[in-house]
């Protein structure tokens, strides 16, 4: 019996190494002094310093954050509205699946569909089209998360609010939304991180003058993996991790309320 447990523990360790080795490599090599990322020439923060003066990278970074923030806000508003509506009309499985489907539609299919739509309505490609496109699939994730929570709220709580004289708007903001807070935070973090590192859809729906960070990284990779790419990878990783940890913290606080 002991042997079997040990064996599975060993397998687990290997799986974890396999999962985290690439990430460790990116983070480790970002501190390489060498200009060729595959040759180690000692530890240093050189590339972290130079990256700030790299104008194309920094402006694409700003664009990416801008897109991610707007996508998050729009997805939250639209996704929460859809969830509340589906819950109120006691929608069945089909409508629920339909509302969350863009989350599982292959990115490529979604990207082609969006591109076709934009060209059909003669909308020129820009950051606006990227934001709209990201909102399409991020909304699906928000709906999935919020719908799971909203079903757990006792419908009598909203009725109690009405019974006590509150308007529908007051009930929404004072009763329903505070109850949904943990799922709204989870939905926001999901939207933000998904939008931030999204490549395929942005590649199809973005204009040529306003590349986002993943697009810039992709174009840089054609000349080999530079240490700057490792630095960018590490920064994206940190932002994602901080987001997830913050969400868990706030989520815990919101849950205990």
């Amino acid at each position, binding site marked *: 019996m002991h042997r079997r447990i040990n064996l599975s523990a060993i397998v687990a360790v290997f799986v974890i190494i396999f999962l985290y080795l690439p990430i460790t490599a990116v983070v480790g090599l970002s501190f390489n002094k060498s200009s060729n990322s595959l040759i180690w020439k000692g530890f240093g923060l050189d590339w972290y310093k130079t990256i700030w003066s790299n104008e194309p990278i920094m402006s694409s970074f700003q664009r990416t954050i801008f897109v991610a923030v707007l996508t998050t806000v729009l997805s939250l508003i639209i996704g929460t509205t859809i969830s509340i509506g589906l819950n109120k009309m006691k929608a069945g499985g089909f409508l629920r699946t339909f509302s969350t489907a863009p989350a599982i539609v292959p990115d490529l299919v979604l990207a082609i569909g969006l591109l076709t739509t934009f060209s059909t309505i003669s909308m020129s490609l820009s950051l606006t089209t990227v934001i709209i496109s990201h909102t399409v699939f991020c909304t699906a994730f928000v709906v999935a998360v919020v719908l799971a929570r909203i079903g757990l709220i006792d419908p*009598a709580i909203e*009725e109690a609010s009405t019974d*006590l004289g509150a308007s529908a708007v007051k009930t929404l903001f004072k009763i329903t939304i505070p*109850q949904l807070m943990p799922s709204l935070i989870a939905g926001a973090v999901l939207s933000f991180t998904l939008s931030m590192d999204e490549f395929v859809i942005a590649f199809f729906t973005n204009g040529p003058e306003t590349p986002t960070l993943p697009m810039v990284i992709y174009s840089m990779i054609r000349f080999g993996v530079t240490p700057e790419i490792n630095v960018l990878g590490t920064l994206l990783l940190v932002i994602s991790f901080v987001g997830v940890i913050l969400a868990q913290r706030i989520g815990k606080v919101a849950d205990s309320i």
Partner: protein
Amino acid sequence: MSENLLEIRNLSKNFGSVAALNNISLDIKTNEMFALLGPSGCGKTTLLRIIAGFEYPDSGQVFMNQSDLLSIPTRTRPVNLMFQSYALFPHMDVFSNISYGLTNTSLSKEEISNQTFEIIEKIGLQDHVKKKPNQLSGGQQQRVALARAIARKPKILLLDEPLSALDKKIRQEMQIELKRIQHEFGITFIIVTHDQDEAISLANRIAVFDKGEIKQISTPQELYENPTNEFVANFIGDGNLLKATSTTTGFKHPALGEITVSHNYESGKQISLLIRPENISIVKVLDGSGEIVDSVFAGYRKNINIKLKNNEIVRVYADKSASLEIGDQVNLSFRPQDIRVF
């Protein structure tokens, strides 16, 4: 007629093909403790939700002080509901829960605070003002729900199964408390319950519901002593309903034989006789009309089940010291005036 606070006239409501309420009419008086009693699915909750404003009837009218109640929006009806699940706002403390209804009025912050603290004091929640609902016991949560529902000083307080979630000891405490508060605040209470003990112990009058219809409206005592139909006889209290045939002088029961009463009945009809357990006395004999099949000690008395010769079971209360054992043969006796006929 002017003392009627609420007049319900010919109310009907269907959910699909199911009639939740079928032509209900009912008057409720000012300051009354009124209970809507019936098994689950009998329509009592639907009536409660119509009065509260969460459902709208298919036909019929509801008047409060002679004016149409149904045309008043839910938010502004002078009616509040204490939910079965309490439905406290989990993210708000006790003070905010209770003051919530007052924040939807034109009262100033100071007045809201004063009135809220006044209610908190009257309901005995002084030590819990800053607590969240999940930090309170079941009984305390119910007090908060009650305080919140009466904070707007409604003309009618609707209570949905108010005691069902509490354990026995707190139930008795809350029964007394509900009566005290009803008296102190002078609010008409309408209680929905499936529990006859709850209805009998709380209410001045009870409407017994079955399948969307009112079977009888009366005081608890009247319902117990003079039920007007078999459903009420069965639903209220412990009762023995025996199948018998009417004769010109009374009834004939297959095991108990001829029973003579002073009334004249049309002979040969199938009827049901209601006899309450406490109105039956039993005597041990060698060969009786029934046999004791069960005997349960219930504190101050024994609950005894007797199987009659025709296999009907009759329940009887006996003195706790009575020497009656399972298997004993007994004869039953009762006064004709204690029999109710359906």
